[in-house]
């Protein structure tokens, strides 16, 4: 036994030493280190977000230059998982600001009292219709994105068929077996599309609509990745996979991204947007209750709706800025599409009915 103990001590010592070494090795990667030791007078402000968060290095440096704070970004899982982690750690948050709660999840965040009210500077440049918590300012709108049906331009041109424009079009026989969407229970575009149909046809009508869609051969896969990369004939992945569905539920920003990430870049986008099938997602940020660096967090919220960050977002996260004075890059104006009266549902209605809508949708369409 004493052998084991000695060996154990030696091994643990060695492991700790090596771990420490490895720690040194990785601590020069931007901002790792053991974190959360910052006091209130700290010069670091921590932003917690989901995996899709991105910002240009220069823009984050600009924030440091203006305010003296360095931003440390922590990402964990998709939007739903990241928010749920915040709720679990409420009161003792891992960071100061949370970015990435959207209107489908907003009520869950607010009901759990996740955020400390703060009215960000420059909020007057943000339209009132996206300020969903305007009386209390617990959250600040940062960006919007539209979930819309995308179409494969070539498919419809080859067949001299006009692509669909509205929700109602999708149920027409001309578009039989063409649409693929995502599971509303697990995928955020899938949920957005379902909410769009609820907003359009009402709580009484959306089930009938989905019955028609089902009869018209809608295909449901689990996530956006499978739908877009494996089933949709207009995407790069779909072409390789010989995909055969020319209609997919994706984002209004997908066509410009197809152009940006093609080599060489084409003159027109290979895909288009059915502008009458859109659901508007609004993403918010808020100061976390119990934040260690409250002053830094407030400065960061101001910065998130500042012109610089707002103009950076379209090309880093493929969303639209909320600030009226932010210019949208040419790529978006040239290849993108504007949603035609995007559908919305009030966050408290979503919070109240979401489970039930998803459940009846599942039993109607999936099973």
């Amino acid at each position: 036994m004493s052998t084991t103990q000695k060996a154990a001590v030696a091994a643990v010592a060695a492991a700790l030493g090596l771990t420490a070494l490895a720690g040194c090795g990785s601590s020069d990667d931007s901002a790792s280190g053991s974190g959360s030791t910052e006091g209130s007078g700290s010069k670091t402000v921590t932003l917690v977000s989901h995996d899709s968060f991105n910002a240009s290095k220069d823009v984050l440096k600009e924030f440091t230059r203006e305010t003296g704070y360095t931003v440390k970004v922590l990402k964990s899982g998709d939007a739903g998982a990241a928010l749920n982690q915040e709720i679990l750690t409420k009161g003792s948050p891992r960071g100061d600001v949370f970015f990435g709660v959207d209107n489908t999840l907003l009520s869950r965040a607010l009901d759990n009292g996740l955020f400390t009210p703060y009215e960000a500077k420059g909020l007057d440049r943000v339209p009132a219709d996206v300020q969903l918590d305007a009386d209390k300012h617990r959250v600040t709108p940062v960006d919007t994105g539209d979930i819309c049906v995308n179409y494969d331009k070539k498919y419809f041109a080859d067949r001299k068929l006009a692509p669909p424009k509205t929700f109602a079009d999708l149920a027409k026989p001309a578009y039989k077996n063409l649409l693929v969407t995502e599971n509303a229970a697990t995928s955020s575009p899938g949920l957005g599309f379902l909410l769009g149909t609820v907003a359009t046809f009402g709580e009484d009508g959306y089930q009938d609509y989905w019955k028609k869609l089902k009869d018209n051969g809608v295909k449901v896969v689990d996530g956006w990745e499978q739908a877009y990369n494996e089933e949709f004939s207009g995407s790069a992945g779909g072409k390789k996979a010989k995909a055969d569905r020319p209609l997919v539920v994706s984002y209004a920003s997908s066509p410009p991204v197809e152009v940006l990430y093609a080599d060489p870049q084409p003159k027109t986008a290979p895909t288009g947007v059915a502008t009458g099938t859109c659901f508007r997602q609004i993403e918010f940020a808020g100061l976390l209750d119990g934040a260690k660096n409250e002053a830094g967090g407030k400065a960061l919220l101001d910065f998130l709706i500042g012109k610089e960050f707002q103009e950076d977002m379209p090309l880093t996260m493929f969303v639209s800025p909320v600030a009226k004075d932010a210019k949208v890059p040419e790529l978006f104006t040239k290849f993108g599409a504007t949603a035609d009266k995007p559908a919305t549902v009030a966050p408290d209605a979503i919070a109240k009915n979401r489970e039930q809508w998803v459940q009846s949708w599942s039993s109607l369409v999936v099973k």
Partner: protein
Amino acid sequence: MAVPVAFFAVFFAYPVAAIVGRGLKADGVWQFGRFGEVLARPEIRDVLWFTLWQALASTALTLLIALPGAYVFARFDFPGKQVLRAVVTVPFVLPTVVVGTAFLALLGRGGLLDDLWGVRLDTTVWAILLAHVFFNYAVVVRTVGGLWAQLDPRQEEAARVLGASRFTAWRRVTLPALAPAVAAAALMVFLFTFTSFGVVQILGGPGFSTLEVEIYRQTAQLLALPTAAVLTLVQFAAVGAILTVHAWTVRRRERALKLVDPAQTARRPSGAGQWALLGGVLVSVLLLILLPLAVLVERSLGGSGLAYYRALTSADANSGTFLVAPIEAIGNSLRYALVATLIALVVGGLAAAALTRRAGRLVRGFDALLMLPLGVSAVTVGFGFLITLDKPPLDLRTSWILVPLAQALVGVPFVVRTMLPVLRAVDARLREAAAVLGASPLRAWREVDFPLVRRALLVAAGFAFAVSLGEFGATVFIARPDNPTLPVAVARLLGRSGELNYGQAMALSTILMLVCAVSLLLLERIRTDRSGEF
């Protein structure tokens, strides 16, 4: 013993118990009535039933396809055997995000089956079953084949000489010796398929859901902790039962068998029957394992040859997806995997050493406990970390060390299973002789045990390394600064539209596959004589 126990208590038992407790307690009172409520829901019953039957069917199918493979790898000598044995193991350590894509190319539209016969199996249960065979082929080949190779063929030959028919000789001589290994392999496959997550999500589509998928959905999406807690405990009970039976068969297997050097039992196939068997196995490996892997490689090329690989090295081409060039994910992954391997080796090695020296029910229980992380949902562990490791001195929630810690949890069972048989085979008298001759316990360990187990240690290290490299589930839930691992980077690239993003995802997957294959090939070179289960 103290170190592994402490490790498991702090980084596994405590976080999991805390998250389950949060789900089952309301105002400080346990709510066991929730079991009844949750388990009475028809959709939960569907999930339970599907989880069970698909795991049974997958296990049966895997045995059916992989047992001939185990025989061929054990008894036949053919060129490229070592490489092939490494290759069939690659799927086992690849993240499912990657493999799902490749598998769709085989079974989905425009896939091989579609081209030949117009058959499409995607979003059917067949896709799930076949993918489970793909993932677990190596488990059977390694567990059963490893033992089969060491059974003395002369025993069976003796039975033939004494007048037994070929089948009777096999049934009465080889089968009894082999049965515990087959049972152990079957139980491992059952465990892995019972807790299947990615395969079911990607290939099965929304129509199919296993317990593991449901736990993920209830926790990460809905934050319905009570339901998740009940399901976690149900899965716990099932996995515990599987592991208990498994530990029992393993002990039976360790019962003395006269084993011989595998090199002596393998020979070149002779006669039409044996060649046909070899051919059949090679074709099944080609179709089921090599083809999906080849699809990945094929899709990573394209555009202008290596364009996607070149794009990986540039941060500019990825300004929208990463702050740093994706190629750096390789460095991150290697660094994390290295630390995880060290932790797994220390914890697993000490646990194996303790298990060798002691017997008794308590120790055997600990043996099974070490395997539990394989059967617990990554999201449960990840969320558990979040609510437990939040106070000094263990405020690790934002530390990079959580990633290798979570990966090590998955690596430890492999280390233990590899080391244990070898350690048990070390003759205690050697150690005693050294002690009599005046060696200190440490010196005796260094000069007697260590040289004997060095190779097993290397094999264990390699396995822990490869498994950590491919670990995706827990990593993705752990808040980390922007230094993604390979599987995380692949998932992020797949989550974006655009040709370059898709191509880079395929290129990174290919790199991950190659890194795994190379480390497994190195393992093949240093395989121990009495190799463990894997």
